[in-house]
């Protein structure tokens, strides 16, 4: 992977400013004069929605394949080979396909998508991902009527991923979605972040991101997407079914058995900043609540 020099990284302030500039265009021409001034203060904006720094996003990771400490993925993933890489789409489809990473980047246009990531552990970041909707990828195959769920399988390579030499979880990492969740436009196939290639520690070369679910639902380094009839058992469900359910929607009203989910620690804020309230479906309630109408979210956590 190409190493990114620190000097190449856009300072957060300029990056944020660029966005507020673009935002202001849609609000009205009158505000352009104000926001186009360099380094206008962003202090007035909501701290919770500030984009997390590139450094924090790429050095504070949960990626047990590379180790269980937050700094391990960055340390242990730098020599991970992501080329060549193939992703197969199989299971309940008319004709299974296998795509190389090159084919995927050619076929689908990645756009910037800024989403909040809420970890089940009680912290959050705001990440400018690059990616496209999973539904676009799934439109390349014809689903059979039995395709009720989607199962994501991450790579299994203990030679390169030292965390996989220990049975912390059942390897390879498996996650899943209901088909309507998978088809939702917010469900994103991620190929990059901060307008750059996806770093290894963030799930290169290709991962999924589901903004309204806890972070562990968003499997990294995916090699297989399988359409299935029965609800898949994810690695975390297998490890502790009492604590981690299939849905794992961000929900401040349903606590983890060992801690509260009502608030979150915003990564990047200083030590004096209070924890902020966690929002239902991580703030994407308007977009996704209709997927769960009539469902008891306490029971189907």
């Amino acid at each position: 992977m190409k190493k990114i020099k620190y000097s190449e990284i856009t300072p957060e302030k300029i990056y944020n400013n660029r966005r507020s500039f673009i935002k202001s265009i849609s609000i009205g021409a009158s505000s352009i004069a104000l926001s186009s001034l360099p380094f206008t203060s962003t202090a007035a904006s909501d701290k919770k929605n500030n984009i997390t720094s590139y450094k924090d996003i790429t050095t504070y990771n949960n990626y047990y394949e590379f180790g269980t400490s937050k700094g391990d993925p960055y340390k242990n993933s730098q020599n991970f080979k992501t080329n060549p890489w193939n992703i197969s789409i199989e299971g309940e489809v008319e004709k299974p396909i296998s795509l190389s990473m090159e084919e995927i980047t050619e076929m689908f246009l990645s756009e910037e998508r800024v989403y909040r990531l809420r970890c089940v552990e009680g912290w959050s970041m705001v990440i400018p991902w690059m990616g496209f909707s999973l539904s676009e990828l799934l439109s390349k195959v014809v689903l059979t009527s039995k395709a009720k769920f989607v199962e994501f399988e991450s790579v299994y390579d203990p030679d390169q991923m030292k965390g996989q030499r220990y049975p912390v979880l059942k390897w390879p990492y498996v996650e899943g979605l209901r088909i309507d969740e998978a088809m939702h436009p917010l469900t994103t196939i991620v190929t990059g972040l901060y307008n750059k290639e996806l770093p290894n520690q963030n799930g290169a070369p290709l991962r999924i991101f589901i903004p309204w679910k806890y972070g562990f639902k968003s499997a990294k380094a995916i090699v297989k997407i399988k359409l299935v009839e029965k609800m898949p058992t994810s690695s975390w469900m297998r490890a502790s079914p009492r604590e981690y359910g299939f849905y794992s929607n961000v929900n401040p009203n349903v606590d983890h058995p060992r801690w509260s989910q009502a608030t979150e620690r915003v990564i990047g804020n200083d030590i004096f900043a209070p924890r902020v309230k966690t929002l239902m479906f991580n703030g994407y309630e308007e977009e996704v609540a209709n997927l769960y109408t009539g469902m008891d979210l306490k029971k189907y956590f």
Partner: protein
Amino acid sequence: MKKYLKPCVFIFSLIPLLIITYKIFFNQLGPEPVKEITHHTGEWTLIFIVLTLSMTPLKRITKSNIWISF
């Protein structure tokens, strides 16, 4: 000479405190601020314990009393 050495040692010993104070007030603690503070203070405590405990052995090895003359 000795008159100035002692205050100098005390002032230099405050550097770790200055570093962590700077980090606290300028949001330089990173994604895990509490961990950073506990590790920083803990590591420097251990360093100072080792330094102070090494004075008597140093006196014996070098056969000089300068180490414990404060």
